């Protein structure tokens, strides 16, 4: 059992951190929450640990967002973001370009409805349709429809912003 959890931890930790990061937009907080998720998983020993991990992660992220609202602490996406930093020392121009791209992605995600965003992020984290359905309360058949809509909206919003930014720079 512990070995199974260890294997799950090794294979899923990064996905959970990424899932949480896209919700709390704070890399250190995302890691803290991810570790809290695994601690809870070991304490509860759920039957379907992978789906359970993301369900708890979503709840923790939701609580974190509420706490952030209460504290009126507005987290910014890219300022001092160590996660998205390239490993090499980027030039100022490259850094600006990278920051712009990150901002476009976040804004594109923000155009989605919370339900669409949640399902898209769960899919990107590697959850299956039944797992997504179980976590979100949707029918399994509706997950494909929702995913199709979310993908289109995300890509459209991203491309729209990219076009606008390029037009502004040129």
């Amino acid at each position, binding site marked *: 059992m*512990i070995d199974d*959890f*260890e294997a799950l*931890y*090794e294979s899923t*930790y*990064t996905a959970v*951190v*990424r899932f949480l*990061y*896209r919700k709390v937009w704070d*890399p250190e907080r*995302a*890691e803290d929450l*991810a*570790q809290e998720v*695994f*601690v*809870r998983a*070991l*304490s509860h020993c759920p039957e379907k640990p992978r789906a359970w991990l993301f369900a708890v992660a979503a709840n923790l992220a939701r609580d974190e967002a509420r706490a952030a609202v209460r504290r009126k602490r507005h987290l910014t996406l890219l300022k001092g973001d*160590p*996660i*998205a*930093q390239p*490993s090499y020392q980027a030039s100022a121009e490259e850094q600006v370009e990278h920051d712009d*791209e*990150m901002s476009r*992605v*976040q804004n*594109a*995600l923000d155009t989605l409805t919370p339900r669409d965003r949640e399902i*898209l*992020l769960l*899919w*990107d984290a590697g959850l*299956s*349709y039944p797992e997504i359905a179980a976590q979100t309360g949707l029918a*399994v058949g509706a*997950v*494909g*429809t929702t*995913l*199709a809509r979310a*993908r*289109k909206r*995300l*890509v459209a919003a*991203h491309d729209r912003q990219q076009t606008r930014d390029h037009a502004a720079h040129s």
Partner: protein
Amino acid sequence: MPHIPEEELHAYLDQALARLRCVEIESHLAECTRCRLVRDDIVALRDHTTAILAKLAPRRTAGPPFAEIRRRAADHVAARQRTLHRGAWAASILVALGVGWTASFLVHPRAERLAARTQAATRSVSAPIGGDSVSAPALQLETPAPSATPALASRNSSGRHPDAVVKDRSAAQRPGAGLATVGRIPKDAHLELGGVWRTLSWDGAKEEAGDSPARIDGLPVVEVQVQRGDGGKKPLMVVAQQLASGEVVRTIDGPVTDVSALLGTRPTMINTESTAAGPVAPGAGRAALGSALALRHGDRMVAVAGSVPSDSLRAMMRRLNLMTRVR
């Protein structure tokens, strides 16, 4: 075969369909150019979406060692168990208290209620009286303490009281004496009033009196003694009730002459005007034992006697259930 819905192609590419359905779709795609184009668009859309989201991906971090997670999980479990144990202890204590209280109430429900009402009655004793609901005259008969008890009915001709009665009184006044018989009168005792005293149960007393015997509401009855009247007269009845302090108070109900004689007081000393309810001389100082208050109504008299202050007697007088009947 109709064209494949777009959302089903998404599910197909996400490997979320059953194997049989996948075979059907692949067969259709092999024949349908339009659906193949749609599939290619969806593949591009998926790849684009993945690429966009990958830009938000954190750098690969291994996280802390799994042993660290295990240690924190163990701490978490221990803390949760401590909380559960504390909660269980608190709950068990509460349950034990509740069970104990319920059981005691079930075992002595009436005693509990009467005790509570007795305390209320005792508190009301200290309340001042003046032009209140006591409309009947209340005389204080400053009789010697022993004479206020039915046991005194067994006194000898000199009016002195047998020592046995005193012993019984002290036993009855012990806190927690409960329903112990107090002031029992020898059955063969021929009283000054004549006749024989009998100790009855409460139901027997009601049957004897033809009604609920006169008593102070809210106090537990410890003994009922009765002396059948002659010539069809109502019986002379003494109801002993116990205060929370252990004091025994007796309510004596019967013909005026009998009650007066029992109290050692001549009937002429009793005010018979029911509307002349003036303040009664307290006499509390000398009423530490054996004060009595009496109420006359026609040829009947009800007296309350006990070793309590006179104002307490007055308060008890107001609680006589007989008051309602008399009015």
